[in-house]
């Protein structure tokens, strides 16, 4: 099929069929990553700008590797040392990028809606690698890819707990949208200070205590706790947070016997997840990283090779 979307701004724009296409394409690319020579010529001559206006190592590297394994040329642009730090507006930055005629812009920005803002102003594909607290669609898709790797294609009826700082999390928002669309039940669990006031509006069940949230769960996604939340008065201290919400082996015993543990990284060991759990056999944390490369290869491929309606590529 021809990919119907110019941009990937959030998972909410995708149909179930679109999601299946991403998953199937990612599965076909995964094999490349285990070859001795990890490179195919699929996107030779295409250029991808990695525009990260917010610090990122993991996501940026993941996209960089994904692009290079498909033979695209990737160009990194960070906020530090860039014209954005010299007071250039986002509009001028993206018009400048557009004038260099890339095939795709992968972008991260601290403002919710920034990817949408850019996508409306450029003709190339825009892939949202995280905008403010709003959306992180590639993370949600790689999390789904990881879960389908252990559960099979059907996730209807599975219960997924998203644990931690939901209020400030684009990962949580995108995962709730994607998982509920595919028929899973999502539980959000956090102290009230780390949940949006109307958390139910996100479409999940809301818990303020860990034990009932974990009851019978099939997977637990821990979120990273930004240390500045403590300074903002949202938490007394990290030790107290860990007492109430750190995922430990004892607490995880309340979940399904086959429960899987996930984390988008980077991990604060001993704060949101006990150190031994992060390394345990039911942890999918490193599988998520591997899935990330395959899913991002699929997304770059689909967006860059799509044909405009009635036109050439």
């Amino acid at each position, binding site marked *: 099929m021809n990919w119907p979307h110019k941009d990937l701004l959030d998972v909410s724009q995708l149909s179930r069929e679109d999601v299946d296409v991403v998953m199937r394409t990612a599965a076909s690319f995964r094999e490349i990553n285990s070859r001795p020579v990890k490179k195919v010529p699929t996107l030779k001559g295409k250029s991808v700008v990695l525009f990260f206006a917010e610090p990122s190592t993991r996501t940026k590297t993941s996209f960089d590797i994904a692009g290079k394994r498909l033979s695209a040329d990737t160009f990194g642009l960070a906020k530090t040392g860039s014209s954005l730090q010299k007071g250039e507006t986002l*509009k001028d930055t993206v018009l400048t990028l557009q004038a260099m005629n890339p095939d795709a812009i992968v972008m991260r920005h601290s*403002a919710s809606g920034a990817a949408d*803002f850019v996508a409306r102003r450029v003709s190339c594909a825009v892939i949202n690698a995280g905008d403010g*607290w709003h959306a992180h669609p590639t993370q949600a898709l790689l999390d789904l890819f990881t879960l389908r790797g252990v559960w099979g294609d059907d996730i209807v009826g599975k219960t997924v707990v998203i644990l931690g700082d939901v209020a400030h999390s684009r990962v949580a928002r995108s995962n709730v949208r994607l998982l509920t669309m595919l028929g899973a039940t999502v539980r959000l669990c956090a102290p009230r200070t780390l949940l*949006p006031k109307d958390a139910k*509006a996100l479409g999940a069940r809301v818990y303020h205590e860990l034990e009932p949230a974990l009851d019978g769960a099939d997977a637990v996604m821990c979120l990273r706790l930004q240390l500045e939340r403590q300074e903002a008065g949202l938490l007394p201290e990290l030790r107290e947070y860990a007492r109430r919400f750190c995922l430990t082996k004892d607490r995880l015993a309340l979940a399904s016997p086959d429960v899987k543990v996930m984390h988008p990284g980077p991990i604060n060991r001993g704060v949101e997840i006990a150190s031994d759990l992060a390394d345990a056999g039911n942890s999918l944390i490193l599988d998520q990283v591997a899935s990330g490369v395959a899913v991002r290869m699929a997304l770059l491929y689909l967006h860059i090779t799509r044909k405009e309606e009635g036109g050439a590529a």
Partner: protein
Amino acid sequence: MTSPDLVVANVAVPGRDGLWTLLCAAGCVLELLPHDPAAAFPDARVIDGRGQLLMPAMTDAHTHLREPGQEWKEDIASGLAAAAGGGFSNIMCMANTEPVNDNAAVTRLMLRRAAEAWPHGPRLFPVGALTLGLAGKQLAPMEELLAAGCVAFSNDGEPVADTDLFRHALEYAADLAPVIDHCEDPYMGKGTGANEGAMSARLGLRGQPDVAEALQVARDILLAEYLNAPVHLAHVSCRRAVELIADAKRRGAPVTAETCPHYLLMTDAALFGYDTMAKVNPPLRTDDDRLALAQALREGVIDILATDHAPHAAHEKETPFEEAKNGITGLDTALASLWELVRMGQLTPQDIALRFAWRPAEIFKLPHCRFAPGDPADFCLFDPEESWVVTTETLRSKGKNTPLLGQSLTGRVLLTVVGGHIVHELARPAAF
């Protein structure tokens, strides 16, 4: 009897049956006659008012005209042009200019600019700063500002956080002029531009809860009652504040309040797609709040309408939502947009005359026209049936920042008269 120099014949008047004829002379109303005087008026400009509504010209108690200091957004000439086109005779402009209007020199500059650009009006009435530099540390010289031409005091946009200082400001101003307060808790979601609720949760925006507004409304009501000093609550946007004001008024507290057309017409649903044009402070709230405000306006719990006209340049809105400036430009579209509520039966034309023309002028002691003999000839002719499209060309304000941009409005101000002078007359096709 003096012979009229301006006549509007055969015009409908809100709340009155039949067609009327307004006679004016030397800038004042002579008489509003319930019939067509057979006499000819050879010395008068005679305007045929058939199909139109005679409205008192409005008083806008809350605008930002940006001059001095931010003339790329608006200046006094362009702001008053928008006012004339919108049917306003009196414009009160806030003090958050650069420099701040906290001394007589700035007030006089504003008045001189208005006199140069629009010598016959709309009239400009500056609002002086309540504290020096709007910094909330030291009272501004209020008597000096009053003597120079200010008609009220406000720290608009920078509400005084220090409650003790605000108490003294109310006490000191009580013998001089009304205090207008922008109610917003200084810590709770300041400057976010989004209502805290389901929409902000989904969009991933930090929200400002309605409680942040209601907390300061409650503070101001308590102080006004305790000190017996009046306070006017600016741009009320939520039900919680409405309920506090209703209670206060039942007790006889000396408070008055305003709301703006956008809070009566829009909700935070307008934020979908991160539309920065709908970013305003206080933020657009929910449908429940919108309905509470319309009811409060009908019942007089909210005394007046004001635009909170807040013009910005295009590039200041062409940013991600969080970085965009707060504010909606409003003078050009206020009356036409409110007519939507008239058609829906939520407001009557009399409500608009009372809440947008007479009451604000009474509260701030400004000239106004009730069409009684001797009143200033301040009125506009409004065609409730004429449709027009809001474009960068039809807006006279430099600020094109309104969610109405590109939309069609039904109802248009055709003519505005201030003190007997025609300050706005829509150019008509010759055949009209």
